[in-house]
């Protein structure tokens, strides 16, 4: 693309400049996290910060959440599209969130974008985005998998000025916050976002002053060239050619058929082309991904597969070309709903991982991970009885086996990495009791290297009139094993587990009403195995058996009698009283 790859770069300056840019962005990120009010931004750090040049090219980001760079870039592009350069003034700041009007990926992610002026010219943009816990719409939390249009998902904000020449537009803020369920929280967090950018503007100006504008512009070009060159080198080292992989979702959010997500990855002369043709049609529910979300997901996979420390900037994008068929689940037509895009992005990342697996060296390969974002939402009357609470929990699963190691047990994968809420905090805060939080025995996909174990979390309602919603996927589908490895276990929701009135359900449930004493359990998928199970080392199998990660019966089935017997013999040596 625009980068002149033949040009030499300053090998020292590029690293020093990169540190300078990251210092600014990290300082902004620290300020945003430190000062924000809502647990979503402050505790779970569901927010990101980035720096762009005046053309809207991303220079760097503090990546707490990979998908955010897509919406920030989309937002800056939308500002440049909707406003003449003459209409952008020093002291202005823009707010936006909409998927169709402002490059957003779903409405709860609200971006604030602030231009940086220096010697009478627009030079850069600083931008930050936070996941606001509620932006209105048909359900608390604004994400309803069965929403059928974006109008059910909350307030839509195109790029508009939230600050004009340094004056905060209180009327705009009132308009936005009063379209949400928690106006006070929204107002505090939005003002913190604006202040974060103000700080970023000052720091960026200081850096321009220190380096000189021309030198800084050259350093930006160098950084982008350097990044694309670094990525190209990785791509050139891969097997050239193309390869496809398809993963599946149970349905599109409303009942019906499984939905494919297909990626055809082609590597040619150090360029990466990914064609998503063959992916399912646009979701009738909220599982659609905007193209900015696809770009962010692709960037994540490129870093994860090829170079975890690769800077996330336009140099990376310049090496990638994407084909996203319009009207499909990864490029929906207005006004399709997009709230529940995370699960689709997880599956999409899994498809790209799968396609790459055939081009990577054997020792770089990883089998499929659980590839969902499992969520449990409880709501009811608070302990004090004075208000309704909403409690959202995400639950990790098993990750794919890696050629050099077993998959991680009970850890988030791909584009999410959020913290759980401590059991003691849940029980203190809500009329709920956690009955079990554990790794599920036998949930990993067996293999030479096994997949990670899925997680079970079981919660008892202590008061009547508690409602529960669950969202995930993979009730029918599962994390695939590679190279002879076996698939991981499925995802499911179980009401009153182990009792006479136990009911097993798919993991997409909306507003189930629970009576006091009733329990609901969510089990997340395990990761896929890698390599033929018969190739597993006896030591590893023995440890898994001893640690009850797999039952003897299941081991015999997956790993064969001979290997299992040897492993059992090994255990009995160190455990004279071992009881099988």
């Amino acid at each position, binding site marked *: 693309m625009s980068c002149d790859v033949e040009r030499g770069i300053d090998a020292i300056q590029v690293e020093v400049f990169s*540190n*300078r840019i990251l210092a600014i962005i990290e300082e902004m990120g620290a300020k945003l996290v430190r*000062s924000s009010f809502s647990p979503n931004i402050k505790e779970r750090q569901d927010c990101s910060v980035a720096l762009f040049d005046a053309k809207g090219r991303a220079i760097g980001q503090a990546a707490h959440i990979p998908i955010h760079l897509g919406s920030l870039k989309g937002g800056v592009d939308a500002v440049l599209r909707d406003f003449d350069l003459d209409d952008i003034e020093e002291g202005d700041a823009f707010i936006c969130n909409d998927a169709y009007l402002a490059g957003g990926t779903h409405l709860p992610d609200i971006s604030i974008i602030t231009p940086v002026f220096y010697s009478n010219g627009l030079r850069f943009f600083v931008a930050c985005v936070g996941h606001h816990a509620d932006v209105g719409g048909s359900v608390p939390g604004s994400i309803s998998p069965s929403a059928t249009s974006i109008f059910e998902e909350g307030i839509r904000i195109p790029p508009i000025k939230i600050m004009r020449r340094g004056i905060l537009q209180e009327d705009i803020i009132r308009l936005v916050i009063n379209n949400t369920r928690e106006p006070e929280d929204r107002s505090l967090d939005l003002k*913190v976002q604006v202040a974060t950018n103000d700080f970023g503007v000052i720091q960026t100006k200081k850096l321009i002053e220190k380096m000189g504008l021309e030198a800084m512009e050259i350093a930006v070009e160098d950084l982008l060239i*350097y990044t694309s060159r670094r*990525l190209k080198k990785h791509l050139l080292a891969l097997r050239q050619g193309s390869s496809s992989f398809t993963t599946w979702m149970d349905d599109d959010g409303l009942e019906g058929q499984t939905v494919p997500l297909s990626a055809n990855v082609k590597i040619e002369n150090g360029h990466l082309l990914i064609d998503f043709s063959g992916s399912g049609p646009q979701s009738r529910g909220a599982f659609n991904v905007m193209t900015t979300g696809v770009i962010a997901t692709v960037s994540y996979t490129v870093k994860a597969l090829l170079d975890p420390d690769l800077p996330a900037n336009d140099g990376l994008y310049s090496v990638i070309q994407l084909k996203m068929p319009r009207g499909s689940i990864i490029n929906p037509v207005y006004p399709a709903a997009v709230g529940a895009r995370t699960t689709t992005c997880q599956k999409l990342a899994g498809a790209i991982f799968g396609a790459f697996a055939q081009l990577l060296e054997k020792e770089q390969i990883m089998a499929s991970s659980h590839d969902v974002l499992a969520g449990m939402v409880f709501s009811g009357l608070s302990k004090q009885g004075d208000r309704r609470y909403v409690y959202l929990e995400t639950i990790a699963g098993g990750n794919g086996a890696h050629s050099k190691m077993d998959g991680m047990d009970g850890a988030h994968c791909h584009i999410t990495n959020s913290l759980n809420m*401590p059991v003691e905090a849940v*029980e203190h805060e809500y009329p709920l009791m956690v009955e079990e939080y554990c790794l599920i025995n036998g949930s990993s996909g067996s293999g030479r290297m096994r997949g990670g174990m899925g997680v079970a979390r079981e919660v008892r309602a202590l008061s009547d009139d508690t409602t529960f919603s669950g969202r995930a996927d993979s009730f029918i589908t599962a994390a695939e094993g590679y190279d002879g490895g076996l698939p991981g276990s499925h995802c499911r929701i179980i009401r009153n587990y182990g009792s006479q009135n136990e009911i097993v359900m798919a993991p997409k449930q909306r507003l189930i009403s629970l009576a006091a004493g009733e329990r609901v359990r969510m089990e997340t998928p395990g990761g896929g195995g890698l390599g033929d199970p018969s190739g597993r080392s006896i030591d590893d199998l023995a440890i898994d058996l001893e640690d009850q990660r797999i039952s003897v019966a299941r081991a015999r089935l997956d790993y064969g009698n001979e290997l299992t017997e040897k492993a059992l013999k090994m255990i009995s040596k160190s455990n004279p009283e071992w009881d099988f």
Partner: protein
Amino acid sequence: MSDNKWKIGVDVGGTFTDFTLLNDNTGELKFHKVPSTPEDPSQAVDKGLSELTKFYDISAFEIEYFGHGTTVALNMLLERRAPTIGLLTTKGFRDVIEIGRQTRPHLYDYTLKRAPPLARRVDRKEITERITADGSILTPINMEEVELAVKQLGTRGIKAVAICFLHAYLNPDHEILAGEVVRRLMPDAFLSLSCEVLPEFREYERASTTVVNAYVGPKMQDYLVRLEKNLTRNNVITSPHIMHSNGGMLTVKTAAKLPVRTCLSGPAAGVVGAANIASSSGYNNILAFDVGGTSTDVSLVLDGQPLFTSERTVAGYPVKSPAIDVAAIGAGGGSIAWIDGGGALKVGPHSAGASPGPVAYGLGGEHVTLTDANLILGRLNPSTLLAGNIALDFEKAYVKMESQISNPLDLSVEAAATGIIKIASSGIARAIRGVASAKGNSPSEFSLFAYGGAGPLCAADVNEEVGCPRIIIPPAPGTLCARGILLSDLSFDFVRSLLVIAEVDGWEAVMNNFEVLKEQANKLFINDEVILSARSFKYYLEARYMGQSYELRIPLPGQLKSNSLVEFIAAFHVEHKKEFGYELVERPIEIINCRLEAVGKTSKPISEKATQNKTEPEIKETREVYFGSAFGWKETPVYERAGLSHWAKVIGPAVIEEMSSTTILPPNYEATVDNRANLILVESS
């Protein structure tokens, strides 16, 4: 017999074990260094002690205080060679320590795994029992299950057992009952109860801290016994004090019971030293950084006080006890320079460490490091380091720099070496700026405080990117940690979670809790023989607005009884506004933890003085030093640090050498020596 009284501080580092001696009568300070003995750190302590008593002609009977910073617990966690332990948990929750907070350690790098649990799943036994969120017993503990579980652990050869039940911070009864069974059936096992190690809300962090305590327990006990024996054999009559992570000291007895508290004592000692030295020169706000062989520790001191955190991970394991807040990055003298796939020059995070070390050490190091770059540019003494203890091979470093860095990048050797220093400095600067901004501070209001062997070498380069108005270099910057140990008092932290609303009933509960904690503290003081007049207590409440999930620490000033609920609420709002920029006066405040810091005063300030004879700085020698393309090679005077007297002024370019470190003064800097023998560097006007 002389009536000299000596205090000794010993800090065990990765490469060297440092000793600081303080003559308690005269205030005179002496330093000593011996190579560390990682297999058994007490050997180096033993060797150094006998060397220095001989060298300085000190009778062991004159040693009235022996303070010790130890990395035994930390290294056990880093190396994970100790046997795994047993754990008893509430039924349904044995995997809590394995799932943790369910995050992966790196967003993008799947080859990095979480640190494996220190208790294997087979040795994590679930017990039928349940305490609820209000502390009441829902299901009484099944003692038969406990007996069976403990017997099973015994047959598997387990040497240490941790117990962590849900809500035990509110009601310890079940843990105590189960603990009695362990004591009865496994009398030799090391036992940790979460209600004793950390009676604090949030099960994963509490369990992790309790498990770490049990894991490091047996070996730490052995080490302390050995240490005491060695001291006795050397005729030292005083019992050692052990540094812990909050910058205070513990008696051996307490450290043996709660070794988890010593995990982060090394960096803590340095920060205590830095805070103390800077504030006695009138600099109360500093950004301190310690550049060692493999890593750099960064910390912030505000109003003379180091910042504390209660959330640290040690080698991947959360340890939740108050610790001085230190951020570490992988940049040090041994950091290796390399060229990445995109054609950029990188420094670290791989390090040549102490062995094989930089190319110039001639111990088999093949990769050029930051130290080699400093040597090539004349910034380091071209022949020796550490007063002759390490010989340097300039030629070899030069050749490797040429072949590995400057030829491939088509740069001169000077430019390549300068680049390595600039890159390492910009990385350190980024970490310092991060530490400053995490609490909302601007570096322009702080002094930069550089220590560690390699800190003063790059201080001016680092400050180019940080922008502090001045740089402070303490005397003997390479042995600051050992001095910090002499400046630390006996201290211990007590905590109890109670989770109440800040209103009249809740306040009564708070006061009752503090009384209980104070009783525990006094018991400890009596045990440790701290006299009444030396005892002091600091009270803190950790609280939040309803709906938040993070707490602010609010000190309760002076006597406990004098504090009122109304004043606390007002103080909370003020602190929240100061910390986060706003207050919510309508929202109820929730009090989460009562925290008591008990201090037994044992130290007194070290008043180091610069020599007062106002002689002109004497130039020891001159050598060619390269100061970047702007200045080029310059014939540069070299000074001996000890020869610089009070108010001496040195104009850059200059090199100031001392045994444990080298300070670089670029042409645009000047330095003065203050009353306490610190070098104060500022940019020339």
